[in-house]
């Protein structure tokens, strides 16, 4: 096994990776920006190195600096976490050239899935159902309008290189599309360095369901079942659960088969997730592949008993997957609530100092937390400050336990979305599994 791993990330995911590395006696090397000097991940790693000023472009996205630290500290591998450099082909190529292992897929697979347009083509050819939409990039708003009128409004406008909800928008008219095309292309250009746009049909009443995969360097690909992540705001997930309450056993199997086929089509290695939209008639369509560990991976770990980070390390080291498909089964039901530093009604960010933090305790509760009491949440990074994961014997049991856990969760000094999370889990619609991607709009905001 690797003797040392550099974690090129911050916050809760850096801590999460450090935890497994420690258990496996791997030396951990953290990196941090000037804004994160006091962050828990800096103190928990065996060593920590300052890599620059607060802004991500000057620190966590500074490829030269991260590589320099990796070389200086003789790190054998780099775990990129999620976001930041995790899907950056240039980074993964360069560290390979330095003889350092990238804990993730090879640059080819990242590239194939990094462009949503390319990914759609690849999946279509592999026989995985895709959402009806444009085959190629749309050059301008006029072309977008022509196509939208052919398939009919509403349509989903998307940036091919977008992510995290940025660069995508549902549009209902020519006028809206003209405005949305310019603004989303510009945002995608600014955030992802590529403003290529395309259009997909809107799948009505869709749920967001994804399949967790693990693949080794010896041709073995297994799935670890599904997660449903339909409860979203601004196209970002808020509550995730495993397994999905929507799927029938037959659909569950068909989707897992499709996901494995998709991974094999690009010779995928390491942990990855295939996201699908599923309608209420159990039709499913490929949405995208995330070539990294997901934020919501804990719910899969809870229902399968598998430590995904450990598996990532094993696979990256070249080991044959020790888990066989037939070894895996779904055990119970797990729900994750993302705690965001934001106004629960407007979703505006709420950076500031956390004056007090009290977390609920229990065997059924897992905390992945980026912050602590007397800690300043800065405006430079993602608003997610913690994840609360609650597991029960059944979905209803997990929901009840989540309600209690949220009641015992106290963050003072900044605004958080905890009131929204409570509204979701107590709602009848959530209990009944009516979790379309429009859930927050349909069931929460409408009552405010």
């Amino acid at each position: 096994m690797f003797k040392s791993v550099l974690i090129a990330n911050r916050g809760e995911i850096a801590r999460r990776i450090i935890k497994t590395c420690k258990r496996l006696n791997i030396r951990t090397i953290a990196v941090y920006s000037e804004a994160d000097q006091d962050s828990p991940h800096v103190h928990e790693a065996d060593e920590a190195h300052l890599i620059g000023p607060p802004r991500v472009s000057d620190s966590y996205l500074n490829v030269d600096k991260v590589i320099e630290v990796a070389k200086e500290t003789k790190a054998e591998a780099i775990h990129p976490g999620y976001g930041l450099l995790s899907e950056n082909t240039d980074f993964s190529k360069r560290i390979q050239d330095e003889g350092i292992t990238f804990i993730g897929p090879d640059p080819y697979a990242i590239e194939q899935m990094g462009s949503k347009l390319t990914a759609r083509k690849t999946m279509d050819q592999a026989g995985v159902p895709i959402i009806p939409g444009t085959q190629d990039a749309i050059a301008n708003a006029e072309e977008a309008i022509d196509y939208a009128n052919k398939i009919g409004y509403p349509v989903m406008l998307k940036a091919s290189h977008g992510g995290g909800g940025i660069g995508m928008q549902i549009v209902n008219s020519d006028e809206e599309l003209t405005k949305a095309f310019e603004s989303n292309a510009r945002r995608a250009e600014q955030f992802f360095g590529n403003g290529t746009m395309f259009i997909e049909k809107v799948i009505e009443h869709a749920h967001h369901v994804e399949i967790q995969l693990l693949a080794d360097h010896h041709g073995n690909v297994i799935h670890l079942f599904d997660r449903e992540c339909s409860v979203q705001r601004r196209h970002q997930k808020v509550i995730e659960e495993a397994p999905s309450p929507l799927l029938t056993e037959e659909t569950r199997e068909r989707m897992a088969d499709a996901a494995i086929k998709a991974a094999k089509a690009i010779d995928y290695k390491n942990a990855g997730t295939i996201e699908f939209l599923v309608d209420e008639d159990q039709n499913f369509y490929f949405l995208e592949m995330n070539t990294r560990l997901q934020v919501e991976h804990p719910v899969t770990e809870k229902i399968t008993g598998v430590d995904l980070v450990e598996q990532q390390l094993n696979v990256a080291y070249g080991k044959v997957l020790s888990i066989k498909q037939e070894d895996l089964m779904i055990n119970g039901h797990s729900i994750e609530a993302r705690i965001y530093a934001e106004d629960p009604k407007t979703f505006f960010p709420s950076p500031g100092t956390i004056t007090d933090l009290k977390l609920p305790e229990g065997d059924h509760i897992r905390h992945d937390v980026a912050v602590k009491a007397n800690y300043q949440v800065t405006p430079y990074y993602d608003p997610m400050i913690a994840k609360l994961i609650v597991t029960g014997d059944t979905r209803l049991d997990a929901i009840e336990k989540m309600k209690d856990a949220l009641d015992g969760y106290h963050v003072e000094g900044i605004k958080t979305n905890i009131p929204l999370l409570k509204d979701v889990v107590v709602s009848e619609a959530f209990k009944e599994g009516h979790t379309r991607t429009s859930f927050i709009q349909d069931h929460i905001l409408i009552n405010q």
Partner: protein
Amino acid sequence: MNQLVANMAGNVWKVVVSEGDQVNSGDDIVILESMKMEIPIAAEAGGSIKELKVNEGDFVNEGDVIAIIE
């Protein structure tokens, strides 16, 4: 005279107007960026921009004055 204040902490991503410009209520004055989100700050009343207190790239706290409109 009207003070336009920041409703959240963040970086000034874009200054949309210049001093002396005439603006209407609801027009965007600056766009703040915080926690990977861009939030336009709009004029609450019309008038001319007497003074811009921020530049692109500045960091503002909630309640900081962004512009004076009269």
